[in-house]
Every structure is written in C-alpha cells, then in structure tokens.
C-alpha cells in the first residue's frame, strides 16, 4: 500500500498520472511533462513535495549535534532563517542522505530530508545523538505538507495568491526563510529557478494549492522536477550518490566543510581518501537519450551515467556521469546506448540556470554529428 500526501485527491481530480515514488503515490505529470518543465522555466509551476520528510532538531545541544552529524557546518548559519545544503555521511564517508538544514529561532533547526530515506535518517541521527551524548530532541513532523512554487514569476504569483505573505517574505534572499503564522516560507528549491518552498499544516495544503492554481501557477509532476533538477546540475540521492559513494566523488566537495577543528561523522575517511572519480555533466552530441547506468568510454578509463534525460530547455540529451577524475570539461567521450557508441561532450554542471543555457559553447555545429 502506497503512502499518500494530503493533496492526493487534488492530483486525482486534475487527472495526474500517479506513480510509485519511493513508496509514495505521487504525480508524474498532469498531461505533459515537457510543458510543465517549460512552465517552471518561463513562468511558475508548483510541486507537491509533501513526501519529503521534515525533521526538527531541538534542545541545548542542537547546534553541536548537527556540527557532528552533518558534513557542512551549521555554524555558517549566521541568523535564524538561514539555510544550508549538506550531506550526512556514514563513518566510511558514504552519503547517508542529502538535506537542507534551516536555522530556526532559539538554536533549533529544521531538516528537510528525502522521502525514501526518512526512517533511515531518523535512526542514524538518533544513533549519533546517543553515541555522542548530545542533549537533543529529534522530532519528525508528519503533520506538515510542502508545496514548492518555482519559476521566474513564482514569488509574484505567491503574493498574488496570498497578499498577506508579501511583507514578511519579500526581503528574503536566496537560502533564507521566515515564518508567517504557521507557514514556513523558504526561498529555496530544486529547479535552478527562483521561488519558494512552503511548509504548511497539512489541513491547509488543499486550500493553498487551489489558490496558487487560481493565481496562474501550473501544477507540475515529479517528472518535470527531475528534468529541471538535472538541467540545474543538482544531484538526486540514490541515483547520483548513495552510501557507497563519497561526496568528493559526487560533485559535492563544495558542501563538505573541512576547516580545522570539527570532527564530523565521515571526516576521517574523507581525509584519508584520494578521490579517483568525479561527477561531471555530459551533453550528447547527436540524437538519442542518455539514461542511468549506460557505460562510458574515456581516454582515462570507463565511467557510468548516474542520471540521464532529455533536456527540454536544450532540446537534447544531458546527463550526470561518474568518470575517472582525470577527465576534464571539454573532453570528448563515447556512451554505449544499446550497443551504439554515441559521442558526448563533458561539461561542468549546471546546464541551465534561470532559464538560460550555460553549455552553448559546447553545442556548436562542430559538435553535432
């Protein structure tokens, strides 16, 4: 039996194609994944991401505990409301999960973690707290829903739908958040566009979804969310990294804070490791579609596609791929697509940011077949 979010009935009414997504019945699309993708790049779209798990860390040791549990350093969160992307590692330096950590008032924190890993994360956090003797309370919040409103017009349409929200959220910079009564509004997302992620009490979610739709925000499924995040060069947990891969081999070295004096879980393993692989972007030169697990041949050895898709913005196929570390942006590689070897160019993600291609220099006539 699949779990359902409080918006499941609205998705059914709207004719969504519902699929099993990490044990949750979620909308894949409401008709056309590509049109939904373009709506987010050009105007505004919304996603029900209530399957993601909200976890609060409270108590006097919350800050010290998260400085131990997370590879990025919550000490960087200078003021309540500020947010930080981080991996949570195991002792071997593998990625247990990736998450966004928001600082709340009074040295409390809110984590938003992946749907399929929620139970595992709670157990792991509990173990770190016990073993380290931290005085913290770790509390799951299954009572809330999350609506991500994304796109160049996302904030304006939110304020059109909820005028009272404007005063408290207009000044938010990217990666900042604020409470408005019992709504938590963060200027974060997973699409490479501007927008808000709104965490609100579950019983209010249907009203909010309908009001946003009336303000011209297009309902979008998780299919478009995947093509948007891939164009934005954002990793997907379980696909681009997992417990067997280091963040240093997953394009996430920038999120690991290894300044002196902080012993976070996994640090010793990372310090002792010498990464031999790197996560890079690929742009397919000709027709075809890159897919996860396709094999790649390079001048420096073999690699593998971790996430591949057709990019609606670039109208060609793009991928994230784990390659030998010596392979550099600009290099040519070949990908085995059902027995055919197709040429691709290595690029540094992101591919698209705020509606604009960042890889045009690799898309010249010369690189076409």
């Amino acid at each position, binding site marked *: 039996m699949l779990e359902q979010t409080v918006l499941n009935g609205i998705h059914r009414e709207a004719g969504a*194609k519902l699929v099993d997504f990490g044990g949750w019945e979620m909308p*894949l*699309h409401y008709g*056309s*994944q*590509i049109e939904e993708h373009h709506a987010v790049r050009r105007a505004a779209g919304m996603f029900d991401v209530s399957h993601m798990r909200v976890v609060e860390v409270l108590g006097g040791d919350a800050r010290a505990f998260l400085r131990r549990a997370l590879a990025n350093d919550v000490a960087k969160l200078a003021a309540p409301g500020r947010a930080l992307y981080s991996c949570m590692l195991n002792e071997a330096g593998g990625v247990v999960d990736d998450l966004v950590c928001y600082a709340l008032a009074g040295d409390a924190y809110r984590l938003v973690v992946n749907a399929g890993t929620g139970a595992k994360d709670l157990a792991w956090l509990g173990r770190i707290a016990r073993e380290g003797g931290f005085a913290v309370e770790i509390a799951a919040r299954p009572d809330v829903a999350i609506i991500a409103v994304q796109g160049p017009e996302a904030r304006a349409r939110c304020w059109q739908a909820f005028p009272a929200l404007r005063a408290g959220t207009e000044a938010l910079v990217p990666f900042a958040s604020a409470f408005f009564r019992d709504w938590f509004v963060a200027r974060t997302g997973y699409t490479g566009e501007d927008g808000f992620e709104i965490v609100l009490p579950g019983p209010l979610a249907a009203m909010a979804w309908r009001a946003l739709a009336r303000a011209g925000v297009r309902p979008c499924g998780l*299919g478009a969310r995947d*093509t948007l995040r891939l164009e934005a060069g954002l990793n997907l947990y379980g696909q681009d990294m997992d417990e067997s891969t280091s963040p240093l081999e997953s394009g996430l070295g920038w999120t690991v804070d290894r300044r002196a004096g902080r012993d976070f879980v996994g640090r010793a393993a990372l310090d002792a490791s010498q990464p031999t692989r790197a996560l890079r972007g690929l742009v397919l030169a000709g*027709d*075809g*579609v890159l*897919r996860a697990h396709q094999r790649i041949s390079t001048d420096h050895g073999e690699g593998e596609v971790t996430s591949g*898709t*057709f990019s609606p913005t670039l109208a060609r196929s793009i991928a994230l791929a784990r390659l030998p570390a010596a392979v550099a942006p600009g290099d040519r590689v070949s990908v085995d697509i*059902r027995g055919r070897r197709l040429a691709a160019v290595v690029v540094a993600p992101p591919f698209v940011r705020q509606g604009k291609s960042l890889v045009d220099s690799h898309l010249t006539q010369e690189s076409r077949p």
Partner: protein
Amino acid sequence: MIKTPQDLKYTSSHEWIRQEPDGTLTVGITDFAQEALGDIVFVEFPQVGREAKAGEAVAVVESVKAASDIYAPVAGEIVAVNESLKDAWEALNKDAFAAWLFRLKPANPGDVAGLLDAAAYAASAAASK
C-alpha cells in the same frame, strides 16, 4: 479516453498496423502506448531494406521516461520510415494513429490474419494496465 480505431490491426505489444492497397503494412504505436510512455523525444528508426522476423525489435521510442522497443508485427522487409517525424516527435503524442513509424512489406501476406482486431487489442491493453 484511449482511442482504438476499428479499421486497424494490433499487436499485444501496442503497435497498430494498417494494410495499404499495395500490400505493405504501415506500423505505429497505439494511443495506449503513447499515453503510457509520456512525452516522446526521439525515435531510433530501422534501416530501410532491413529484413525483420516477426516480433523482432526494429525501432526504439525514447520518451522522457524510458526507452521502449517497437517490434515488427509480422516478418518482412522495412520499406520506409517516417522521416517527417524528425524533430517533431510530439506528433506521436498528439495523434499516435496519424504519426506512423515505418512501412513493412510482409514476407507472407497471410500473416496479417494472425494480428489482433480492435476489440481483442482493447481487451489485451485493459488487462495490461
């Protein structure tokens, strides 16, 4: 509402087949198939002139979701592919019965009798849901 035109033949693997006056067969994917695949972004066509066995994978339809094999409904030679779909693949989603993929000259014209009619296909597709 999934369409299943009465005048076509079908396979349980979701190809539709139209018998042309010259004896060739025009082959495409059904409305059920395009609906299941989602937005189609590329088709890998067979070489014209290729001899295919019945049930052999001869083309690949790539959607935003997945790559799906398309099978020869009967044995025969590929005599044409629908070049007009190139860079207009969304035509397959808009009207799957107009956007044909390839034409095949059957090795044995009688083989067509073994294909499904609209009612049998509709039942088969409903069961595969």
